[in-house]
């Protein structure tokens, strides 16, 4: 379970991510439309075995982002969804061990972890772009946008992981 210190820590991280997203990454306008949505990093940073807190925190962060970026609920929807599917997804990739005593194999799990992040980012972008467009007439254009945007977001998150030496979350705690 999370202690009070953990709660304060994650609220602080959430505020930091909100500021970075809204002040820096939402003003990039690469090719006039591409803004990396790095705030999904919050979901990957959150420790495992706290699924309820993760879902609620993600929803609140999403709402705050919607407020600041004026997207009216889209970010909250997408972030809550990936927060919800994170745990079963990681379990299926055996990133989290059901049994507490077993040891996760680090070297192998690093690749799997970043692969899972890529998939989650892709789902996140797909939801956001398809709700925003709400028009599947130009689906190839939509898919291209989603792919390009999620690859760039993924590389930025990878960069952040390596620069700040963020520990990879796994079932060991």
């Amino acid at each position, binding site marked *: 379970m999370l202690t009070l210190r953990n709660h304060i820590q994650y609220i602080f991280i959430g505020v930091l991510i909100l500021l970075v997203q809204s002040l820096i990454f939402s003003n990039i306008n690469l090719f006039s439309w591409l803004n990396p949505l790095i705030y999904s990093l919050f979901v990957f940073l959150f420790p495992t075995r706290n699924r309820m807190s993760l879902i609620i925190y993600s929803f609140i962060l999403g709402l705050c982002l919607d407020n600041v970026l004026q997207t009216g*609920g889209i970010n909250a929807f997408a972030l809550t969804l990936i927060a919800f599917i994170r745990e079963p997804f990681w379990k299926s990739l055996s990133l989290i061990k059901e049994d507490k005593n077993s040891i996760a194999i680090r070297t192998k799990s690093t690749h799997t972890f970043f692969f899972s992040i890529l998939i989650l980012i892709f789902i996140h972008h797909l939801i956001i772009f398809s709700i925003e467009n709400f028009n599947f007439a130009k689906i190839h254009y939509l898919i291209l946008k989603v792919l390009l945007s999620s690859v760039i977001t993924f590389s930025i998150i990878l960069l952040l992981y390596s620069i700040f030496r963020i520990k990879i979350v796994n079932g060991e705690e």
Partner: protein
Amino acid sequence: MSQIIQFIQKGRHFFVFLVLEIIAISLIIGSYYTYTISFLNSTNYISGKLYYFENEFSKHLTLDLENQKLLEENATLRNKISILENINAASENAVQITDSIRYQRYEYIPARIISNSISKKHNYININKGKRDRITQDMAVITHKGVIGITDYTTHKFARVMSLLNKKTKINGNIKSKGVFGTVTWNGEDYRYVQLTDIPKHITLEIKDTVVTDVHSNIFPSGIPIGIIKDFKLKAGSDEYIINVELFENFLKIENVYVVTDFDKIETDSLYVNP
């Protein structure tokens, strides 16, 4: 009974998730398909302040460009003044008639943009003037180059502007050389072009004709430039054109705008309200 409780406990994550997603969906629907203002808008105190402080820092980065723009605007205004002075001097020895017809209809309030976006389908702009500067709903926002948007929500210190680059925005446009009017909307794709629709087929269009705001608009003063015609095609299955209009204003680089107060607004609006 205990089975029900057990069932809920087992799937508690899912139920919380479901409730939150339903809240999010209702917010999305509320923001997209109705014209009401939800509580999720960044004109409120905290985000307004956040953008205000960001702007306090970043406004120094574009001073050169802004100076250049102001110089250009001053030059055009000076040219206009000199023309008007000539006309006045030429006309019958300056007989001034004080008449109630001659009065100022529009007032221009300068404002500064504190946040802007172009990459979404529904873009909004926040400006640093609000109710205390007599800014209300449905006022025109322009620069000297062209139309920017319409104010749609104000707080004490800030106001939110529905940008021209918003799928909900509809304004009356007029092809200057032809005198025909249509509706200017945005299709949500490219921030450099807007679309002029409702122009009937029998009118011959020319590339590079200027599109300005129409006299029929009861928000914008008439003759504010919007852009020039880039290309046009007939709408499939109808006898109207869809015209791509290239905007004069670069929406990526606007910093200073004017909010237009129309002193006749109450009077003109009453014509629409009363049957």
